[in-house]
């Protein structure tokens, strides 16, 4: 019985130390040092918020760079992967369909040039990035749709390609939303 009494009290004490103390310290730090005062960081175009920097969104227009397939159609209120096994025949048929669609939208590509990451779904369904190669293969389509010089579009891609951490660790990536926003800005000027 004494143990039960201690259990209640120690749980309440921990609620205060952790649920209030620890949480408020972090909340305070985030208000000062977080990129958006503790909220998810956002990207703006002409002063308008057009998306969260770290959350991918759906791009289907031919004037935009596209992100990766998403099992939840970029629903930022949820998240989810396909959870398909790479040995599942139904899944492989789905990927084949995506390859066909990608080739139809980019007729100048050969099959061997289609990057696998552009036809496989991400883990979160909200992947904000594509690989530099995934961007490169789309440059000609975007340039043609906007009547731009492909070299100029490629320059934007290059300037927005993020190197691995400290130049040494991890992957190279391009944030699709920032890329498309930069594109919109260039077209306006």
């Amino acid at each position, binding site marked *: 019985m004494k*143990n039960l009494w*201690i*259990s*209640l*009290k*120690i*749980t309440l*004490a*921990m609620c205060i*130390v*952790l*649920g209030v103390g*620890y*949480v408020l*310290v972090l*909340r305070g*730090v*985030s208000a000062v*040092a*977080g990129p*958006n*005062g*503790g*909220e*998810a960081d956002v990207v703006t175009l002409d002063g308008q*918020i057009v*998306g*969260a920097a*770290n959350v991918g*969104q759906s*791009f289907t227009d031919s004037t935009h760079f596209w992100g990766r397939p998403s099992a939840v159609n970029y*629903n*930022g*209120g949820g*998240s*989810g992967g*396909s*959870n*398909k*096994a*790479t*040995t599942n*025949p*139904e899944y492989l048929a789905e990927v084949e369909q995506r390859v066909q669609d990608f080739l139809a939208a980019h007729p100048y590509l050969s*099959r*061997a040039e*289609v*990057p696998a990451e552009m036809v496989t779904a991400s*883990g979160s369904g909200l*992947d*904000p*990035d*594509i*690989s530099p*190669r995934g961007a490169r293969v789309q440059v000609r389509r975007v340039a043609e749709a906007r009547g731009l010089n492909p070299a100029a579009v490629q320059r934007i891609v290059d300037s927005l390609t993020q190197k691995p951490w400290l130049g*040494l660790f*991890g*992957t190279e*990536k391009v944030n699709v*939303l920032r890329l498309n926003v930069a594109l919109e800005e260039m077209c306006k000027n």
Partner: protein
Amino acid sequence: MNTEILGVILQWTLLVVLCYPLGRYIAKVYRGERTWLDCMAPVERGIYKFCGIDPAQEMNWKQFLKALLTVNLFWFFWGMLLLVLQGWLPLNPDGNPGQSPDLAFNTCISFMVNCNLQHYSGETGLSYFTQLFVIMLFQFVTAACGMAAMAGVMKALAGKTTKTIGNFWVFLTRSVTRILMPLSLVVGILLVVNGTPMSFDGKQTLTTLEGAEQVISQGPTAAIVPIKQLGTNGGGYFGTNSAHPLENPNAFTNILECWSILILPMAMVFAFGFYTRRRRLAAWIFGVMLFAYTAGVIVSVWQETAGSPQIDRMGIAQELGSMEGKEIRIGSAASAMWGMTTTVTSNGSVNSMHDSQTPLSGMLQMLNMQINCWFGGVGVGWMNYFAFLIIAVFISGLMVGRTPEFLGRKVEAREMKIATLVVLMHPFLILVGTGISAAIAAANPEIGWLNNPSFHGLSEMLYEYTSSAANNGSGFEGLGDNTPFWNISTGIALIMGRYFPIVGQVAIAGLLASKKCIPESAGTLRTDTGTFSLMTFAVIIIVAALSFFPALALGPIADYLTF
């Protein structure tokens, strides 16, 4: 060498280098020696005073376990109540409803046993109140509970014959105030700076570049992620855990979070060495665990970076490896590394979808959890290894015709019986559970549990019970597991998988502690040698791995061979 592999090597190095000094620090904390966090002493004194705990009071192993089990039982009711009622409680800006009783049962048990199997999705299944006062609270205190149990075992094995093994409440409190909370603060601050949200304002609604409306879930994420990793909990804030770009925004946070999974379980091995002044034994134990872990990492990284053979056959460019269920900013190598790290410990957080990893990686993940003692959960993982040590001592004792002894104490029939029961309970829970569910799924093909056909379908069920019994909490998430059958059956596996071993291991330590200490002589079987370590390794492989071989052959191995 490519930068993805360099990232994996960096992480491995940071773990191995930093766990040693941290282990020494932890030993000091439990011995009550001076440390640089003595500034926490007033907080601790406040807690003892408020709760009516006498920190000087020593407990014998039965009192110790009674306190441990009572507080856990209390947490069960606490969690159940808050989860069912969360719809009416404050801090619920998204208006999420209370959980159904069977789901609340599963959630509550799984967080109480430090497992964090999640049959709900964080964005819609919890309010900010329950995220903080059930999920985060449990992530701290249940990890501390496992560490306290290990502190008791260390005290029992440390020195002279003793009836008492320390004060449970003191160990519990110190684990939070001096180890888990300070480390979590450091990790949390680094996450906040890198863009992990920490707010209470509810979902953001915004209009995308193409004019669609998008809702962004956020909340006090940065408070939960550090302890989810450090306490080997694994229950993500968002549904997809650390694959979610807000929970794990870039390559640096990925390295930091993955490091946080393993650092405490690794440090606990050395803490044992420093506490009991048997550093050689600790180093050998560490060596065996590190070898098994590293071997798994190498195979899995190779498998995932090589890509899926089925996708290869489609003739497209698979330069980045197998990317289904993985994120670009993380990459296939770091996803494979995480998959191994989260399953050798009882963590269970994920940064890629394990269901979509290649079959051999899936098999290694299951094998890690089935063995469940390559580092393992904070505190409890080392204790699982301890049970195997007792068995290895006994078997080698019989082989060379000497009285089995461990750390100067005779190992007798009673301890052996407990150790054997503890070790065999694990395969029993997993294989019986999988057997029953496979029979049900086969008899009712329309039941709709499985997301993938054939061998991989069996793997989904095998993985779920393995993860439950090992208190891991990751899943082959294609499994439709939020049904009363899965909620309740895995709930039972969770309870048995947690308390049975803890009670058994503390009891063994308590029994050993009260025995007469026999001075070591030339006739003593030394446990701090390579030969004995190899022997323990062999016992683990024979007992744990081979019990699961038939099930693995029907699941991932058959999956791998079906090209």
